[in-house]
Structures are given as structure tokens and as C-alpha cells.
């Protein structure tokens, strides 16, 4: 076989291989060159983040407006500090609130933002002060059980008093 034909086929082979890798990076792994100038950062402190993970979506009214950048423990207050990378086109007011929600009953956890009414806007690097923690199922059941049994004892003491 002629050398130039072999070169052509090998070139085509390598080009297809590169195309396959690019396809996997862009379309499958969704590598979007999301540089820092397209997002801005806010912080939010939570008492308990439950099963929140880095890269979890941040939603306002169900629309994804950003992703969780980092999760750290603040060693002074012992609360979880979550870094929120938000899209530059969305701004939030100073009294916006953040809560950790669960998609479905057992689905992945995400941060739900709720826009407030304050005319001032949060700037990059500021904190969202109004936060509510993740719903931990065990704690919820525990609370329910104690209040249930507490109600029972109250009832029984009341009947004993009668």
C-alpha cells in the first residue's frame, strides 16, 4: 500500500480519536469553560448541611442559577460555610434567604434561594444571613417521637390529676 494512503488513514484515525475525546469532555462531562468572570461568589452559613455536596445546583424558583463551589467548617462558629458560585446575570437582594432542600423524597440535595424585598443587592463576597438547615430525617423523627410521647405523658398526668 502506498505510503501517502497509510498516512491519510492514520491521520483520519487520530483525528477521530481526538474528536471522540473532545466529545466526551464537552458533551458527556459538560466541561464548560466557566471562568471566574462569569460567576460571582456569595457565602452562606448553615447549622447543618445534611448531604449537600460540592457542585450541587443552586436554584431560584426552580431555575439553576449557580453551583456550590466549596463547603468548609468555620472553626470559630462551628457552622458549615458554603461557597455559592452564582451566575453574574442574577443578582439577589440583601434579605434573600437560602435553604437546603431535597429533590424528591430521597433525591440529591440542592440550595434553594428565595429573593427578598430589599432594594439593595448582595455584592460578591458577602454573606446570605437568612439560612435554614437541611432536613435530617432522623432528627425529624426524633422530634416527632419526643413530642408524641411528651403529649402522651401530659395527657396521662392530666387524667391522673382528674
Amino acid at each position: 500500500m502506498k505510503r501517502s494512503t497509510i498516512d491519510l488513514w492514520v491521520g483520519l484515525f487520530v483525528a477521530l480519536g481526538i474528536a471522540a475525546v473532545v466529545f466526551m469532555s464537552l458533551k458527556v462531562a459538560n466541561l464548560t469553560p466557566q471562568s471566574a468572570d462569569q460567576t460571582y461568589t456569595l457565602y452562606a452559613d448553615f447549622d447543618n448541611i445534611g448531604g449537600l455536596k460540592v457542585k450541587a445546583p443552586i436554584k431560584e424558583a426552580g431555575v439553576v442559577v449557580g453551583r456550590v463551589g466549596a463547603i468548609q467548617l468555620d472553626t470559630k462558629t462551628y457552622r458549615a460555610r458554603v461557597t455559592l458560585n452564582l451566575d453574574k446575570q442574577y443578582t439577589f437582594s440583601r434579605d434573600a434567604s437560602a435553604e437546603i432542600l431535597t429533590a424528591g423524597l430521597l433525591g440529591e440535595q440542592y440550595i434553594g434561594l428565595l429573593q427578598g424585598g430589599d432594594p439593595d443587592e448582595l455584592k460578591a463576597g458577602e454573606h446570605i444571613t437568612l439560612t435554614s438547615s437541611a432536613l435530617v430525617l432522623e432528627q425529624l423523627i426524633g422530634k416527632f417521637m419526643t413530642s408524641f410521647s411528651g403529649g402522651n405523658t401530659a395527657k396521662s398526668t392530666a387524667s391522673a390529676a382528674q
Partner: protein
Amino acid sequence: MTELLLSPLRRLGHTTINAIWRLGFITRFLLAILRYSGQSLLRFNLTIREIYFAGVMSVIIVVVSGLFVGMVLGLQGYNTLSRFGSADALGALVALSLLRELGPVLAALLFSSRAGSAMTAEIGLMKATEQLDAMSVMAVNPIARVVAPRFWAGVISMPILAAMFNVMGIFGGYLIGVVMIGLDSGTFWSQMQNNVDLHYDVVNGLIKSLCFGIAVTLIAVFEGYDATPTAAGVSAATTRTVVTSALVILAVDFVLTAFMF
């Protein structure tokens, strides 16, 4: 009586020594290939020729198998996932199982039986017809001229073939999941994109296939070079290449998976 007891022991000892000797020989063989790689890579058209025979000629089988594996994953995944009410995760299932395991492993198995066996047979036959000796007489190093280009061709081709296998598999999964069963195309891709990480899944899969490429091609060229120079010897060496490659691929895959994920 003592002879009856001693002869199995002797056979065991012989097998062990032989295995260790071959392991040492294959290591020295790899070092020799690396040492003469410089010479052979200077004449890169030799390697390009081998990439054509090992890589380009394997594209059809890899692409067709990838398509079918992806379609099977789509069907089986849909059956199982829909039982748990999470058929939406089909895209993530297909992509993750292909990128992490099936793509590199199956492409390497196909490559070893399609190209590895051919390499062994070719080198073994060169040895049987004394072409390798003739080269040495002419002061041409057979490792630099014959073995190293084939080795590098295999190492270069393997990740490319694995990447093609992955893409075709994902396309097969898409065909079944979206076109045939009728899942939402947007959900299919977004589930995939949310769950696949570039470094963790894509790059690790490519590293895996590179390791398999090194292992499979080294075994193929070694078995050919080491073959008994007879017709029966070459045929036995070709069989050994396919069997050993398959075992080594699966063993290396286990070790790499344990380290990576």
C-alpha cells in the same frame, strides 16, 4: 516410590522457575524496547505503518461492538431503572459504565484479539523464517526495527480506540433510550452531564486504556519474539497472547479500579 513423590514436586519447581524466568525476560524485553525506542521513533513512518495495521484496521470492530454494547446497556439499564422509577438516570448509567469500565476493558479485549494476535503471528513467523536473524546479520537491530514500532503503535492506538468505543456506546444508549423508548433527550444528556466528571471519569478511563495498551502490546510482541520458531510454536504463541492478554487486562483493571475509584 520416592520417584513417584518427587516428580510432581520437580514439575512444580520447574514451572515456578520458568514463570519467574519469563517474568524477568519480559521486563528486560520492555527495557530493551524503551532503550531502542529513540532509534525507531526517529523513523516514525515505521510506527505510522503499524498504527495503520493495528489501529485503523481495528476501528470497524471496535465501533460496531461499542454500538451494540451501548444499545444493550440502554435496554438493560432501562428495564432495571424503570423498576425503581428512575429511568431518567439512564444517560448517567450508560455513560458512567462505559467511561469507567466497559469502554477501556472491552476495547482492549477486542484489540488484543484483533491486533495483538496478528502482531504475535507476524513476529513469530519472522523469527521462524529467520528474518530476525538476517536483520541482526545486516547490523539492523530487530528490536528497534520490528518490535518497538509495533509496541508504540499499540500504545498510541489503544486510548483512541477506547475513546471511539465510548462515544459509539453512548450513541447506542441514546438510540435505545431516546429514539426507541422515548425518554426525554434533554433529561438523558443533563443527567449524564451532572454525573460525569471530566477528571474523575473521562481522564481515569483514558489512563486505564493507556495501561491496557502497554500491557496488551507488550505481551503480543513478547510472545511473538519468544515463540518457538516452528509452525506449531507460532500458533501456540498466538493462543497464549490472546489468553494472557485477557487475564492481564482483567487483573490490571481490578487493580486500577481499586486505586482510582
